[in-house]
């Protein structure tokens, strides 16, 4: 299991005062695979995300990231911006966090900050208009254009991000995360608030990110049609612990998962399933 994992979560625990949000959670996210983290509201999924992306410092446990040919990186030791900068883990947010007063193109340019900062000689070369920086900026614009075309927003590149429709904002946030050229992309409910057609387009986009860009994806999602369609591996959480894990098919038929979602006892769930079949 751990051989081909990009991310290995081992015994992750996160406490807030007396509340245990995540309790001894272990799972792996496969290399170039889509791993879904599901569970009822309040199960601790977003807390896991915040631990992985450095917004929280875990109370206990280990988070290991391994890229091709690289040494393992202990994510729990890196903090906030370094996770994105050094470990190349990008994320999106449950409530969209774009830069609303900046254009779609500018949003994607900000995402390439670290590469551009280096090219601009930490501002000094850029200030005098060095040719090296200009070339780097052109490349950055090209990458942004590539992603804008990919998400079908090239015509709205110069519009303020805050002016875009909700579905477009969701896709733009994913494109912005991809502009950091991540190895692991963490998506927090990317399909929330999307209609059926938009969800289908999203699934397609995520599959192509995995296939063409070779990024591994970890996603939290409530829209089961998306989860079941695209996930390679599903981890189910409830009350901060893992209750099931496996392929989408396995998880769907697991009585524990059904019990968690229906809020019923395990025995009752089995009874419901048996009477149904």
């Amino acid at each position, binding site marked *: 299991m751990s051989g081909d994992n990009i991310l290995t979560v081992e015994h992750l625990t996160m406490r807030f005062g007396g509340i245990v949000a995540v309790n001894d959670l272990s799972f792996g996210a496969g290399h170039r695979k889509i791993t879904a983290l599901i569970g009822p509201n309040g199960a601790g999924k977003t807390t896991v995300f915040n631990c992985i*992306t*450095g*917004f929280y410092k875990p109370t206990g446990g280990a988070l290991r990231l391994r890229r091709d040919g690289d040494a393992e990186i202990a994510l729990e030791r890196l903090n*906030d*911006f*370094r*996770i*994105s*900068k050094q470990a190349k883990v*990008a*994320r999106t*947010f449950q409530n969209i*966090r*774009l*830069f*609303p*007063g*900046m*254009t779609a*193109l*500018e949003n994607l*340019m*900000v*995402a*390439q*900050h*670290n590469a*551009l*900062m280096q090219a*601009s000689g930490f*501002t000094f070369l*850029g*200030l005098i208009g060095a040719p090296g920086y200009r070339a780097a900026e052109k490349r950055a*614009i090209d990458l942004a*254009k590539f992603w804008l075309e990919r998400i079908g927003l*090239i015509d709205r*590149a*110069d*519009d*303020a991000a*805050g*002016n875009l429709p909700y579905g477009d904002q969701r896709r733009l946030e994913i494109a*912005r*995360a991809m502009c*950091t050229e991540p190895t692991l992309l963490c998506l927090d409910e990317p399909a929330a608030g999307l209609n059926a057609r938009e969800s289908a387009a999203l699934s397609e986009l995520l599959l192509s990110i995995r296939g063409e860009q070779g990024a591994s994806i970890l996603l939290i999602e409530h829209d089961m049609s998306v989860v079941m369609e695209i996930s390679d591996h599903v981890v189910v959480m409830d009350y901060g612990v893992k209750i099931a894990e496996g392929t989408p098919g396995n998880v769907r038929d697991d009585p524990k998962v059904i019990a968690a979602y229906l809020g019923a006892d395990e025995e009752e769930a089995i009874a419901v399933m048996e009477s149904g079949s």
Partner: protein
Amino acid sequence: MSVSAPDKKLATSGPGIPFILKKAFISAAVALVLFSLMIGIRTEAGPTGQLIYWTRFGDLALLVGAVFGGSIVIELFRQWLGPADMGQLIPPSVQGGLTIAGRFVAPALLIFTLLVPVIFYNQRYILDLAILVLTYVMLGWGLNVVVGLAGLLDLGYVAFYAVGAYSYALLATNFGLSFWVCLPLAGLLASLWGVMLGFPVLRLRGDYLAIVTLAFGEIIRLVIINWQSLTGGPNGVSGIPRPTLFGIPLTPGDDGLAAKLGIEFSPTHRIVFLFYLILALALLTNWVTIRLRRLPIGRAWEALREDEVACRALGINTTTTKLTAFATGAMFGGFAGAFFATRQGFISPESFTFQESALVLAIVVLGGMGSQLGVALAALAMIGGFELFRGLEQYRMLVFGIAMVLLMIWRPRGLIGHRAPTVYLKQAQAISSDLVKEGHG
């Protein structure tokens, strides 16, 4: 919820006479309470020290009546014009013309500024005023980096102005260094203090950030007052050398500029020189800021203003981004301070009170946070306009205050509220101020 826009407009013209009268009565009642003691009863110390008072109910009735009538008039106006909206007041054709005219405002203003010493050569008062306005334009542009771009509210900007001024004053009087050597040093020292201020406030937001920056400004001023052996305390530093044109002094002597050029000496030469000096410094500030906005660091500042959490998720080091914003803003403040010292020839802590910080912040807010042209126009209005009202004597502050309140009602996001994008594919469209965040600090 299905009420459409035109229905809403009808609804606003709905509330009739009872509503207007009710509103007017409430306003009049508030006015009565407020003015009853201030206007209604007049007190004075009598000849033997006892308190004598007499009533002025006539004046009170007149004022309350004026408020009552005024409230009705304002309410009628509001219903007649509808919600305050530029689009309603100005037809689209005129608006189109205004946008075209807007494109020429900045170049026209620049050309006019360049010609000011030529046009007003013999009017010393106007030249002095122009230098003062340009100093505030420069300060406004400097603070704009911190407040307008990075969205960090700084109420102690005058501290950097003071650091710059004292840096030049002390280096020049103690070590005899020339203005041109001291200018970069003053900027460097000020930006160092900018970083020093930046560190403790990194984690602060909003009101807390404002309080700490306010305190920082006061600390610098109090240190200057109390460190008598170095700064001369409240007596200030005098005899600060005047600037030279790369070593050639602007004096009547044989080695002065006038003698070298073979023209007759005039004290106005120095004023004109100072004018172009501050203009050059201000334009440098403007140029650097415009360049920085299009560089990754400038975009990171604006992104920080929009959403700090998203910045961190994108791998942007928010600590260094904030510190560079403070340092850059402070550096320009330091330059302006050095210029102030050389222009005045004398500086004392009295020039660096909180009022200066508030004035510069007002210029930035009034101009439209982040807009270079807006800040320049606001500085002109605040400093020049204040002089314009000089004829009103004691009512000057009152008129000025009312003008500012009206302006903030009319344009809540400043004179130029929209934001220009830093990069575009097809066409740069101005971004409405409704979308642009004000920052968290």
